[in-house]
């Protein structure tokens, strides 16, 4: 093609005359995006959000956010003439009377689950590769905000259909709100328009769910994307990849097409799930009534860790001066969420404080190369995971025939011991993997070729590793350390003299010490076939 067709030149000239868009496109059309499978995790969340907006809009056309009571006269026979809220009746209407309604409702629910799952996986990728480091701390904070908002969005969403299960979730939410010291009863009365359940909460949650939170999400997601665009994407270590460049495929046409395809895959998988994997069959639960509940009630997966925390907590409540503080609700409702979200938000700054590292980072760490960070992350996952698992302890108990209270007791200890064990194991695995890397560089890899030596001995020939992999391994960076008292003239620097300063230096030393420095095989000159086989240690003798 020598000249763009008129259908394109016409409008683009029109736009450029008025907006000067050419300058923007000149800089950005061939913007380079690095490639790695883990960079797609965030895209899953992004596309799920788009699908949520599309399917959610469809649902609003029929959903009636009202707690007014009606007798159900629709097509679903088992509930015919049953008294229920208009919200529940219209949810049944969407499911049974609107063609594609059930599909879209199920896709909306699946997309919501995938949205939070995608965000979580993406956040973990960012964490374990250190991609939150300068200059990306702000985007990391936006991400933590997005994750928190997504949980709220999910909570307000699954409360809307007003079936028995959604009502149970709402009741727990209300009980938690009511337990907050000083303002709890006021929060509950203002949220529910009086006593629970009242007639206001579903219309209010509806506004929050379809307008307020999605609006903020949209704004924050846009900011997230713009910052990513401006700061350019991080890249994995590898051949010719440095802190000063970015290597990969251009936005136009390759990245654009790949992303488009990935959107279609996400959409397609959500459609598959919405078709074949039943989710939230509200017609089986019946209308909400605060006097009823079904056993085995579970929230959506992303609320499971809070549910587990509520279940694990021992009874603990204090009364003083005519007031009540109920720690058996407050601690599980606030502390795990607080630890995880605050911990995530502060981590980049704590790490900077410990390492004293103020440089920009654009090449990702491989998780093994920062063993303490990786161990902290895995222990947080273990903490979260145990709470999450115990959010279904009744199911565990009934499926595996374990005594119910035993599961609770195991959980109460595991939630403290588990993360510590996970820390230790992860640390050892990281060091082990680093040693393996060092060995690959210094001794090469097994070629599968057995060679007979002149003296009749058999050895396995080692060859140097493939260049791309060797470069990937050599991308390991030193973690900076603060200068402690041991260095220099024995006089510690000013900041390191106080108790906190000494602690900081110690932590810095532990965090930054490289136990397995890479000894590059390069300086040995040209690799001979036998290179790695020389020396008794590497000799693999066959008898």
């Amino acid at each position, binding site marked *: 093609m020598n000249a763009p067709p008129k259908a394109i030149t016409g409008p683009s000239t029109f736009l450029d005359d008025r907006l000067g868009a050419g300058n923007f496109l000149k800089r950005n059309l061939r913007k*380079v995006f690095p490639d790695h499978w883990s960079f797609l995790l965030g895209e899953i969340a992004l596309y799920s959000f788009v699908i949520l907006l599309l399917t959610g809009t469809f649902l609003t056309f029929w959903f009636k956010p009202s707690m007014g*009571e009606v007798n159900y006269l629709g097509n679903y*026979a088992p509930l015919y003439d049953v008294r229920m809220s208009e919200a529940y009746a219209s949810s049944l209407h969407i499911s049974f*009377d609107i063609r*594609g309604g*059930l*599909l879209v409702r199920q*896709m909306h629910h699946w997309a919501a689950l995938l949205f939070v799952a995608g965000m979580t996986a993406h956040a973990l990728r960012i964490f374990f590769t250190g991609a939150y480091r300068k200059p990306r701390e702000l985007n990391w904070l936006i991400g933590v905000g997005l994750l928190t908002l997504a949980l709220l969005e999910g909570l307000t969403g699954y409360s809307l259909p007003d079936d028995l299960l959604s009502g149970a979730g709402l*009741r727990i939410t209300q*009980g938690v709100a*009511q337990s907050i*010291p*000083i*303002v709890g*009863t*006021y929060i*509950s*009365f*203002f949220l529910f328009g*009086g*006593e*629970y359940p009242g007639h*206001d909460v579903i219309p209010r949650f509806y506004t929050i769910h379809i307008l307020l939170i999605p609006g903020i999400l949209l704004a924050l997601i846009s900011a997230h994307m713009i910052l990513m665009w401006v700061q350019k994407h991080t890249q994995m270590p590898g051949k010719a990849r440095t*802190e000063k460049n970015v290597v990969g495929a251009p936005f136009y046409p*390759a990245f654009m097409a790949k992303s488009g*395809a990935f959107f*279609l895959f996400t*959409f*397609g*998988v959500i*459609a*598959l799930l919405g078709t*074949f994997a039943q989710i939230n069959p509200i017609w089986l639960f019946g209308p909400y009534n*605060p*006097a009823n*509940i079904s*056993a085995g*009630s579970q929230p959506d997966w992303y609320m499971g860790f809070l549910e587990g925390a*509520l*279940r694990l907590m*021992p*009874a603990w*409540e204090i*009364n003083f001066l005519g*007031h*009540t503080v*109920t720690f*058996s609700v407050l601690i599980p409702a606030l502390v795990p969420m607080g630890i995880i979200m605050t911990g995530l938000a502060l981590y980049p700054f704590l790490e900077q404080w410990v390492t004293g590292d103020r440089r*920009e980072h654009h090449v990702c760490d491989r998780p093994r190369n920062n063993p303490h960070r990786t161990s902290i992350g895995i222990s947080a996952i273990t903490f979260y995971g145990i709470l999450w698992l115990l959010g279904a302890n*009744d199911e565990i108990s009934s499926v595996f025939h374990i005594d119910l209270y035993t599961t*609770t007791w195991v959980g109460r200890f595991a939630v403290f011991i588990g993360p510590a064990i996970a820390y230790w194991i992860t640390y050892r695995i990281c060091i082990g993997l680093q040693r393996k890397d060092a060995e690959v560089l210094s001794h090469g*890899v*097994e070629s*599968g070729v057995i*060679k*007979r030596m002149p003296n009749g001995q058999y050895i396995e020939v080692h*060859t140097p590793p493939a*260049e791309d*992999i060797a470069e990937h391994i050599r991308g390991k960076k030193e973690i900076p350390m603060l200068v402690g008292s041991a260095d220099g003239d024995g006089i510690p620097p000013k900041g390191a003299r106080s108790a906190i300063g000494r602690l900081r230096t110690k932590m810095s030393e532990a965090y930054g010490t490289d136990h397995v420095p890479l000894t590059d095989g390069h300086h040995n000159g040209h690799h001979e*076939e036998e290179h790695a086989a020389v020396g008794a240690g590497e000799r693999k003798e066959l008898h």
Partner: protein
Amino acid sequence: MTEQNEYPESGRVPTRVIGTPPADAPIEEHDPIHVPAGVEGVIPQDPVKVRKAERMVAFLFLITFLAGAAFIAAYVIFQVGTIDKTAASNYALGGTLALALLSLGAGVTVWVRQIMPKYNLVQERHLMASDADTRGYVKETFLQGADESGFVKHRLLRRTLLLAAAPLGLAPLVLLKDLGPLPGTSLRHTVWGEPMKGGKPRRLVVEGTGQPIRAADFNSPGGILSVVPEGYEEDLNALAKATLILLKFRPEEIKSGTNKNWTVDGIVAYSKICTHVGCPAALYEQTTHHILCPCHQSTFDAADGAKVIFGPAARPLPQLPLGIDEEGYLVAKSDFKVPVGPSFWERGDAEAEVREKA
């Protein structure tokens, strides 16, 4: 054997193990990637493979077309209404939609990977921080603007502006006040405390049927009923606090925690609303007299004043004083003596207050 080992052929290497050279690379060679002429970092595909891929992509796009058309057809053909019809429509619509989307996605992916060139483009990065000159200029401009505006010089302007903003900032918060009534003491009472018209005490009725309960008829020990207040069978706000579980014991089974003055012939009524976060404590184990809340597994001993024996609930389920009216039906003698349901700040140790009064 030996001969082959001494002259390894690259074809012998089965699949690539991490760390080993690519299968098609000779074991010792330098950079095997052959970059054809053209733009640096843009590596064209093999034309033969491109032609093959083109047919593949076209085939996938054709599937998308057919599946998309089938989706529209399914919308027209499959009607909804009954469970079976809705299920059939759901499979037809969802299946065709998923197929259309997935094969379109697959087509575009094959296009990108096998028809578009391979890219290895390099772009430079620059420090995010702007240079010192720019920073200096911005600083100067900021100071100049602050000066020109008079914000710094005119103290009165500054202070009255802040003063003006304060009530306006509070206004939206004030507007939220009518979101709900103030709690007052409403959490301390239930409808059991309100007598019926004519001053008669309120009867207990079975949830669902609305039947009043004659003490003599509820006579099998170990029995349990879910009970609501007469006249409020459909009032969800009332039910959220006033729902009861009614249990029948043999007299010798009842322990000291239960107030026997509030029982009728071994029939005891407890609030069904869990004292943890308010789920209905709906599960009952007859042999152990345990009431279990399915939400967070708080467990109460029904024979012993519903005291907590496991789980996160900190207080027993409140007991309702029961009596019988002249026709022999169970009624509430009074409201609960302590607030029901989850704890709240203003609650205080209501149980201790009751004990002191007694």
